[in-house]
């Protein structure tokens, strides 16, 4: 169970990293036309899963850094909606952008709440110390 959690956690971190990379790619039309968002997400999630096999706990610091990076890039480029289009191109064709937005932000919010609960409330064994 713990391993499954770590795999999912780091896969999600990989997803955040891949979204950030896709946002940066979108600033160059030559790259944007050639690199498929799906591929970047596959590599990001794959790297996350591989990383999970070398870690014994979920790194809260890593999650917050990747999340902050993603949002900072979004705000700098004013491309908030591109997050959801990136996700849609990851085998979610046919799903409304509004649905993807709700699910993604719900996941992100719950992850944050879980970590806040760990940091300020009961310590969850699967998470690392905030370092």
């Amino acid at each position, binding site marked *: *169970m*713990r391993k*499954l*959690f770590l795999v*999912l956690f780091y896969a999600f971190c990989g997803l955040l990293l891949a979204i950030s990379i896709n946002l940066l790619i*979108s600033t160059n*039309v*030559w790259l*944007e*036309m050639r690199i*498929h*968002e*799906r591929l970047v997400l596959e590599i990001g999630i794959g790297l996350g899963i591989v990383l999970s096999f070398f870690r014994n706990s979920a790194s809260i610091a890593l999650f917050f850094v990747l999340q902050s990076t993603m949002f900072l890039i979004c705000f700098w480029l004013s*491309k908030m*909606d*591109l997050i959801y*289009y990136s996700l849609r*191109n990851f085998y*979610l*064709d*046919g*799903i*409304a*952008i509004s*649905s*993807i937005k*709700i*699910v993604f932000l*719900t*996941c992100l919010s*719950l992850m944050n709440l*879980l970590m806040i609960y760990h940091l300020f409330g009961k310590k*969850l*064994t*699967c998470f690392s110390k905030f370092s």
Partner: protein
Amino acid sequence: MKKTVAFLAAIALLFSACQKKDETSATKDISVNGVSLAAPMKIDESTKTITVLAAVNGKYLTENTRHAVVFKEGKFGDKPVFTAYQNQNDFLKAMLYLNAVAGNNMTKENGATTQVEGQKVAVSVTWNGAPKSYDINEVIIDSNHRAIDMRFGGNEINAKEMNTGCIACLDSCPVGVISNHSYMYGAVEKRDEVTFRGNAALLPKDGTLVAVSFKLI
């Protein structure tokens, strides 16, 4: 630990529930200007018009692209303003069936210095609830305000071999079946001469089915 796993399972369920809802939507039965998911292409010999079903890609209502209409399962199926449900090869056959004259003058080598030739094609877009059929110059914005001049480039071999799915490109193209005579290949991607994006003020929201008509003139 169990609670955490239950939480993650709930997220997975949320995703799957979301997917089911959208897959079972009523879009399968929708017909737009005579085309539908069951019959995504219509050929009208009397008016020399081919109509193709497509969906609006909301991403390119704000982002720059060189692809106007691309088959959804082609290599560039995620890059156009309009994602077509009809493949480029059958579309090209339909053009030839209507005796359209292909330019076939574009190659990768001469692309940067050549404008696509071939019979002129008037491209228009409409959707259910639209007050009229809009010309491509109304639904796609050229940053230079130069008119989009679509030509039947042909490119049968490249279209098949490269399988990009390209039906209509926004600069002259050695692969796309139809492309824009107004700009040479590389104008968008390499030389930054122009940017193209869908007209968000006019087009319906992302995912809306539209009928794209190609009329030989």
